């Protein structure tokens, strides 16, 4: 080590040693090369001489060897013995026996290496057995006639030449030594001269290290060392400037950031004012202390382990740290810790630069709390909520949205909303505009189009109602859209059913009167020249017999079967409707009268052939059919309906089970006849007081109700023959000819009169649509109330849903008016003709009477049960009491009880009885 320092510790010594070493090596190589070349040259000459001698001897020894002339051969050998450097000369025979030798004692002996001679190739002439300075041993075969008969062999040493060569080498060594000495001296002198200036630079360097930055090296000429001095001075200038810049950077950094420096163990070795200020510790308290001093204890242990893991490997760490000030409060800093490695490759120093982010963290936490609240809220609400960004990419699905769409929040996030919400029209299956896109486009809240269906991820569809509203940032720019939707499959299905009910007869499934008239009206609205249609009115014969002998169930069953039969007989585009009771209508479009007659005949024939079996009884029914043509001259529904009605009446009059085609001329006659007949009949009944009132009990289900007795007042007409007639026989006529108002007044007067006598009863009175239109009717009622001094709350007016909706405005006014007097209202036949629950909200009624068509099959038909359940629930939600009609058995009653319907009415509860019989 000291030797190494000796040679390489000083440029001057390196120079001296270098030059001396180069001299020594070069000169030594030169002398060595010279000696080698000389030796090689001498050896070459020695070999040539030995070969020449051998050749000479071999040529002259042929005869001697052939004749074994020993003396002659010895003479030849002796002649060569005087040659300078001769070691040996000999002649050998083919067996290697010495025939002659310069040392006579050897003659007769054998040479040991004769095999070498025998084996040696002889084409080259001589065989070189040994070649070095001490001995060149050459042999040559002696040949006679191409055959070897022996060898001539000469050994030749170097003699004096070796000594001469040695002397030359010695001289060379002396010269080498002298050259090395001169070279070393010269190098020493040059070294001193060169390094003197280097030492000057070194002294300046030492001064700068001591802080004397202004010191500069003296100018020292134009050579490399002089240039080095200049470069060194320039470097010092740069250094001074950089130091200044660094100082400025540092002061700027200290102004902005919290800076500290720690050693490898994490002990603070530098802390700037900011750190002192934010931590509350003095600089003296911080220096030499581990950074853990500032640990707030709020981070999990793994947090700092991860940080140390990063920086101990030499990587920069970024992160947010919560520290604790001396005073105990916490503060947040955004930290960057940069490790600096020492020469051993391990970090020896860490510089931490921090920014105070306490305010931001507080804001973030507040924001987080807000967001958490919002998300919990969204997760809790029953509707699906989807939010997107301004580009329409999903940012959030609440749990309901996840359930309805089949997409998880994670899977949907980031996708375009159109990718995850496939909305189509429920009827056409066409894609509908996504409300999110519309909302983004127009910037306003958008409601979903009606009839929208959501295609679920993984199959299935869902009817939904939804809306989308824009989310705007502080600056008013759109930052996203929130879409809310809910599953309305049940409501939608119900609405469909309702719509169907509105236009169909619930018993037979045929088109109902309302729809039939609508179709007829539509046909009349677009008359065409030459286009002819026909209207058939069908009235069953002997239906009443079935109804009276076997009850409603049998009558209903007959009607259902006949409906199926008739539907199979009319053309596909023809409209077959049940107009009420046992009346049917057929609208034959584009059908001339003759063809209509054929169709009617077919219908009549099939009904005639039809046999109805009921509990071992066999019935045959017939049908009377009236035909009225419809052409361009037909002006109104009333006209054509009356024509068909009259034709039907005529058919009956003419003996039943036949067809009658209406003729213009008998229209007037029939109309008159009928008007007179029906109107006269009703008027006569009113005058003769042949109307009578019945009551049917409405019983509270379950425990409620108590002793209160409810009855629905029913109207019966006692015919001239003394038999009671069903209202179905006279009320349609009374309605058609405007007599219902009078009938209603009669009913009200007589009921109030009865109630005055039996004030504990609660009675329900049916009102026709006509009375609702009669603005004087409400006044009549109140007058009757006052006159009879009854409790208005014991009177409930039943209005059919159809009547109420048809004259909604009047109906609402009428109801509100009379409700102020204390009257109750009931919406009758609810469900049969209703298109929407919406109307219900506008009708301030107290009772909801569920259409008996639903109630009747409630035990066996789950759909009917669902209807009843739904209507009941809606009614009760809206604060109404519900009443089920057509309760014909105990099972139905129990079912209604389970559903929670409030009241029940029907044959299963009580049959209608004359009102006077109740008053006991």
């Amino acid at each position: 080590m000291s030797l190494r320092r000796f040679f390489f510790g000083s440029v001057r010594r390196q120079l001296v040693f270098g030059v001396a070493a180069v001299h020594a090596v070069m000169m030594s190589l030169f002398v060595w090369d010279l000696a080698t070349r000389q030796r090689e040259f001498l050896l070459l000459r020695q070999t040539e001489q030995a070969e020449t001698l051998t050749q000479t001897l071999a040529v002259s020894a042929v005869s001697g060897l052939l004749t074994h002339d020993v003396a002659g051969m010895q003479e030849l050998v002796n002649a060569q013995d005087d040659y300078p450097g001769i070691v040996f000369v000999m002649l050998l025979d083919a067996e290697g026996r010495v025939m002659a030798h310069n040392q006579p004692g050897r003659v007769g002996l054998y040479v040991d290496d004769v095999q070498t001679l025998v084996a040696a190739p002889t084409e080259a002439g001589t065989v070189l057995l040994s070649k070095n300075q001490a001995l060149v041993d050459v042999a040559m075969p002696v040949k006679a006639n191409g055959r070897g008969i022996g060898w001539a062999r000469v050994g030749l040493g170097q003699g004096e030449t070796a000594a001469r060569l040695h002397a030359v080498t010695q001289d060379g060594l002396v010269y080498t030594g002298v050259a090395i000495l001169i070279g070393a001296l010269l190098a020493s002198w040059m070294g001193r001269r060169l390094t003197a200036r280097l030492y000057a630079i070194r002294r300046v360097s030492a001064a700068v290290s001591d802080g004397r930055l202004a010191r500069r090296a003296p100018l020292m000429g134009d050579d490399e060392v002089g240039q080095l001095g200049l470069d060194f001075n320039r470097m010092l200038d740069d250094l001074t400037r950089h130091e200044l810049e660094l100082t400025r950077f540092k002061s700027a950094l200290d102004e902005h950031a919290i800076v500290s420096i720690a050693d490898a163990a994490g002990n603070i070795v530098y802390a700037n004012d900011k750190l002192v200020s934010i931590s509350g510790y003095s600089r003296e308290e911080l220096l030499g202390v581990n950074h853990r001093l500032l640990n707030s204890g709020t981070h999990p242990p793994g947090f700092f382990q991860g940080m140390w893991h990063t920086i101990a490997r030499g990587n920069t760490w970024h992160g947010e740290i919560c520290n604790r000030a001396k005073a105990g409060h916490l503060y947040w800093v955004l930290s960057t810790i940069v490790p600096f490695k020492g020469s051993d490759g391990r970090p020896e120093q860490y510089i931490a630069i921090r920014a105070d982010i306490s305010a931001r963290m507080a804001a973030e936490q507040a924001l987080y709390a807000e967001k958490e609240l919002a998300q919990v809220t969204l997760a809790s609400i029953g509707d699906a909520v989807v939010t997107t960004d301004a580009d329409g990419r999903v940012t959030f699905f609440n749990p309901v949205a996840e359930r309805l769409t089949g997409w998880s929040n994670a899977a949907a996030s980031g996708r375009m909303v159109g990718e995850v919400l496939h909305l189509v029209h429920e009827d056409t299956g066409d894609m509908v505009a996504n409300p999110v896109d519309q909302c983004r486009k127009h910037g306003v809240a958008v409601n979903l189009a009606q009839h929208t269906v959501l295609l679920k991820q993984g199959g299935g569809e869902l009817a939904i109602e939804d809306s989308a509203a824009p989310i705007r940032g502080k600056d008013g720019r759109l930052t996203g859209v929130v879409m809310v939707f809910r599953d309305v499959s049940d409501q939608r299905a119900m609405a469909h059913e309702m719509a169907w009910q509105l236009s169909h007869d619930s018993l037979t499934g045929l088109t109902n009167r309302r729809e039939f008239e609508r179709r007829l009206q539509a046909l009349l609205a677009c008359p065409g020249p030459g286009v002819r249609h026909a209207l058939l009115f069908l009235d069953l014969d002997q239906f009443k017999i079935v109804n009276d002998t076997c009850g409603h169930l049998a009558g209903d069953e007959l009607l259902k079967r006949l409906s199926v039969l008739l539907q199979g007989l009319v053309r596909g585009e023809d409209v077959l409707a049940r107009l009420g009771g046992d009346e049917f209508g057929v609208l034959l479009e584009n059908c001339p009268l003759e063809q209509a007659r054929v169709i009617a005949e077919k219908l009549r024939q099939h009904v005639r052939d039809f046999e109805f079996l009921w509990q071992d009884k066999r019935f045959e029914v017939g049908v009377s059919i009236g035909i009225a043509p419809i052409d361009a001259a037909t002006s109104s529904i009333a006209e054509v309906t009356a024509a068909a009605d009259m034709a039907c009446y005529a058919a009956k009059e003419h003996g039943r089970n036949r067809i009658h085609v209406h003729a213009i001329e008998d229209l007037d006659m029939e109309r008159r006849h009928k008007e007179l007949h029906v109107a006269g009949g009703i008027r006569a009944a009113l005058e003769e007081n042949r109307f009578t009132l019945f009551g049917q009990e409405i019983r509270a289900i379950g425990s409620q109700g108590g002793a209160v007795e409810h009855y629905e007042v029913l109207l019966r007409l006692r015919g001239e023959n003394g038999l009671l007639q069903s209202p179905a026989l006279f009320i349609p006529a009374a309605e058609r000819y405007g007599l219902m108002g009078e009938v209603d007044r009669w009913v009200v007067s007589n009921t109030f009169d009865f109630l005055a006598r039996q004030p504990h009863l609660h009675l329900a009175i049916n009102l026709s649509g006509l009375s609702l239109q009669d603005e004087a009717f409400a006044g009549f009622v109140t007058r009757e109330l006052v006159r009879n001094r009854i409790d208005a709350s014991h009177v409930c007016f039943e209005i059919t849903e159809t009547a109420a909706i048809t004259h909604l405005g009047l109906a609402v006014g009428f109801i509100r008016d009379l409700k102020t007097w204390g009257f109750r209202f009931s919406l009758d036949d609810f469900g049969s003709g209703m298109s929407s629950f919406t109307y219900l909200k506008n009708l301030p009624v107290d009772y909801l009477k569920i259409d008996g068509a639903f109630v009747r099959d409630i035990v066996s038909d789950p759909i009917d049960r669902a209807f009843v359940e739904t209507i009941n629930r809606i009614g009760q939600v809206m604060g109404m009491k519900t009443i089920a009609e057509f309760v014909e058995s105990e099972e139905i009653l129990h079912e209604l009880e389970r559903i929670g319907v409030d009241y029940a009415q029907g044959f299963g509860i009580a049959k209608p009885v004359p009102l006077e019989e109740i008053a006991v």
Partner: protein
Amino acid sequence: MNPQRRLLLRSGLLPVAWLAGCGREEAARGPQYLTQSPLAGQGVVRFGVHPLHNPQKLHQVFDPLMVYLNRFITDVRFELEASNNYAHFEAKLQAREMEFSLPNPYQTLIAQDWGYRVIAKLADDNDFRGLIFIRRDSRIRQPLDLKGRTVCYPAPTALAATMLPRHFLATHGLDLRHDVRERYVGSMESSLMNVVRGQVAAAGAWPPPWRQFQRAHPVEAAQIMPIWQTEALPSLAVMARLDAPEARTAAVLRALEQLHVAREGRGVFAGMGMEGNHFRAAGNADYAPVRAFLDKYTRLMGGA
């Protein structure tokens, strides 16, 4: 000197010291010597041939015979033994250095006394006779014309080329001691060249070297001709040392009898100038005529 400087100097001189260490000599190592051949080789059987050519030519001609024998007999290795001259060859014969030898007929006789016996000889003796050459333009027609002239021969002991011609001349009226000057010129070729160049009037030789000379020097050969030929004697023999194993001797004999049909045979016989000849089995007795001639020659020549 303070310790820092001393350290510096030492550091600087370190490379020099290191360099000095590099020049150290390496140890010299020559061959080591043993008393036995490290080659576990076969036994060597020396086969000497009389120096009818110089050693390298002789090696060229007879080395194929060694190859042939080595192919035939595999338990030992036959090696040709050449000699610089007849004296050298005879000295080695007398020292019994060679197990088999192919001497000339004269040496065949003396080798019998040195422990060798004849095992085979060239079948055709017709070539083994002396020839006396003169230049074609010479006016010599009979031996007496050589009076006062010079005659040359290869060597005194050359039976066919020297002894037989000298015997011929002596028996045809010439007193060799007085009538002619005789000169020994060392070899057959040398003998013939002396005639060609006219340095001698006549020269002794024998048919194989003559045929080779005609091939080798056609121009010179055309200038001379054989004028007389002598009687023939038994041709060259192959001898075995008496202590040679009987089996190996028998094997060598069988091999020699087959040589003329072997692929090496043609070259060997041509090299000897004996084309068309072959070996057959023989014994010492086959060379009795040579002994008889030599007795006659010795008596005739006396001190000559």
